[in-house]
């Protein structure tokens, strides 16, 4: 086996997107920047005139911005959480996909935070959260949890980047100063490798409870009030499941785009999409189970204030959003992902796009109908977003994609060293691991070495 040639090939292919930028790249960046600019203009209007430029009213005090907040924080569960779980579970197929997942988390979480800032009537007083912060308020729990998660995910993205940055420092000519600084003097000594691997595994374990806590406390913002259909005990796990669900969907879409644009068919292979598709199907079922449990309990209990919200979703003002959610989150992915023939890359991407839309609708259907149907049935609000809210939604999406695209132009989107490590050690390691699962052979049981040369080396590898 000539591994060094394979490594050279990997480096060449995976560094190509960073070294070259074609016309399509500039067109994409230009278009995205235009949308982002338009979003800034819309926000400027709101900042100047007040939240009155939105479609919010009394009693629908929260609308698109809070929906976006929950949605973006949900998408952020794609990366760090999935990557950490796959790393801890030693799932070998993770190697090519962890980086693209982790980047989603770090980039999209910024827009979760931005959505909250957009929603504030007085963003200029944001410092009051620190000056007068009260831990009794679930919003403070959010601030804490999201800050930790953003920090943790950034570190967790950065650590496995270091060896790759060192490769770019040594082998590319562009932006040498940047990579020299970011590589932190990485030389690839055994001591450094040991420390890096230790740090990555510690971060992978730490980041999981934080990720779960993030979406739990996001749900608590709603569940801690006494409002009908918010005050629900399953909201924590329901939101976490929904978050991972939309997160995997976003990851599949992102991976398909990377594979298509940078022609990385050899790295992001069909098997990755198949595995993620199966994971996505598991979450389709989980999400459906939670949704069913939530709505059946409300329906069977039949409290009038709850039923007002329930019917506004089922056949009232919000029926299109509600049934749209059911189609996008259950029917489409259910049909596509349960069927091996349809679970192709195109199929999974279509299902994922449907889920992304459906999960946004789910967040909307949780936030708005409850506010529109308060307990005292005198204010009945109807909420129609204005151009400002629509522009800011488009702006957030465009800005997120823009940051993601730019990331792929600065850093390899598929981890080079992890692929190399996979080529070098993983095959033997996995074979050895499988062997430990099996019952011992006759010879091993009786202390007689009967296995061949190959098996000896494997056992040696395990011991090391």
């Amino acid at each position, binding site marked *: 086996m000539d591994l060094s040639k394979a490594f050279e090939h990997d480096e060449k292919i995976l560094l190509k997107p960073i070294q070259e930028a074609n016309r399509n790249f500039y067109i994409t960046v230009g278009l995205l920047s235009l949308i982002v600019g338009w979003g800034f203009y819309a926000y400027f209007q709101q900042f100047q005139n007040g939240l009155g430029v939105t479609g919010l009213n*009394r009693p629908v005090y929260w609308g698109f911005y809070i929906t976006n907040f929950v949605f973006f924080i949900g998408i952020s569960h794609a990366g760090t959480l999935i990557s950490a779980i796959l790393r801890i579970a030693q799932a070998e197929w993770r190697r090519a996909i962890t980086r693209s997942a982790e980047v989603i988390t770090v980039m999209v979480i910024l827009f979760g935070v931005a959505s909250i800032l957009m929603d504030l009537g007085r963003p200029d007083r944001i410092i009051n959260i620190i000056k007068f912060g*009260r831990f009794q308020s679930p919003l403070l729990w959010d601030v804490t949890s999201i800050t930790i998660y953003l920090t943790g995910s950034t570190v967790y993205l950065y650590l496995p980047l270091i060896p790759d940055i060192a490769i770019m420092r040594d082998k590319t000519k562009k932006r040498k100063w940047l990579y020299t600084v970011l590589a932190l003097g990485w030389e690839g000594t055994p001591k450094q490798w040991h420390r890096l691997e230790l740090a990555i595994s510690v971060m992978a374990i730490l980041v999981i409870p934080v990720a779960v806590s993030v979406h739990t406390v996001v749900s608590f913002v709603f569940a801690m009030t006494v409002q009908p259909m918010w005050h629900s005990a399953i909201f924590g796990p329901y939101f976490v499941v929904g978050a991972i669900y939309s997160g995997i969907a976003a990851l599949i879409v992102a991976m398909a785009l990377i594979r298509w644009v940078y022609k990385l068919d050899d790295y992001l292979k069909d098997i990755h999409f198949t595995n993620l598709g199966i994971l996505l199907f598991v979450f389709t079922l989980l999400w459906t189970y939670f949704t069913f449990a939530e709505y059946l309990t409300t329906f069977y209990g039949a409290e009038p204030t709850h039923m007002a919200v329930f019917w506004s979703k089922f056949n009232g003002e919000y029926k299109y959003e509600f049934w749209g959610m059911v189609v996008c989150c259950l029917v489409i992915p259910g049909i596509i992902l349960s069927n091996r023939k349809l679970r192709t890359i195109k199929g999974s991407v279509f299902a994922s796009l449907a889920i992304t839309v459906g999960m946004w609708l789910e967040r909307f259907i949780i936030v708005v109908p409850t506010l529109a149907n308060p307990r005292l049935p005198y204010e009945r609000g109807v909420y129609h977003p204005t151009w400002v809210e629509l522009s800011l939604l488009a702006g957030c999406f465009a800005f997120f994609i823009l940051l993601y695209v730019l990331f792929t132009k600065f850093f390899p989107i598929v981890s080079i060293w992890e692929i190399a490590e996979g080529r070098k050690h993983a095959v033997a390691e996995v074979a050895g691991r499988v062997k430990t699962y099996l019952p011992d052979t006759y010879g091993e049981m009786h202390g007689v070495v009967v296995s061949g040369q190959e098996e000896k080396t494997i056992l040696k590898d395990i011991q090391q």
Partner: protein
Amino acid sequence: MAKWGMVIDLDKCSACQACVVACQAENNIPNSNPESAAKGRNIHWLEMIPFIEEEYPNTQMKLVPRPCMHCEHPPCIKVCPVGATQISSEGIVGQINARCIGCRYCTAACPYTVKSFNWFKPQWAKGMERALNPDVTVRYNGVVEKCTFCHHRLQKAKDKARYEGRELGPDDYIPACVQTCPSEAMYFGDLDNPKSKVAILARSRRAFQLLEDLGTHPKVIYLNEGV
């Protein structure tokens, strides 16, 4: 320590809405306009809400004046991230406009939907700014505001009583709505004093509170025959 509370006798209320007007004038509540009304963005600290019983032709309609309930256990206070809405030792739920960040969590958490948000910079018809009450802060764009039981009147009454060297009397402090009510359907006083008029009325057979079962313990008590 006093626990200020209000009793509204719906059997006496003629739904003239003088209390609403008095509240708007007393507390510098901005003028509404048809557009903001259509969007459901009018600011009201005290509002008449229609309460319709039975179907046609036996329809009975009541208009119920609804100020802030000044709950003993207010859901709005729990959720505020910056402590901009607080309950005083005398049971008045107030809003610190200068600290509010406008997240509208309190408005979303209030089961009575009595808090209002300033969607735009508040505006008055020309000339009306000169009629503003100097005792009450004019609010600004992007903050939440609410009924304070005319808290500024309590401060004034306390100052006056102190100056005159006497205790605060039962009629020294009443909110503008109660003072205005022509049919004398509204009462205000100390619920902790068992001999006060509001405490006696609150024990009446006709007494009820809005959404009693939520455990918020509202300090606005309604009286109505047959409820």
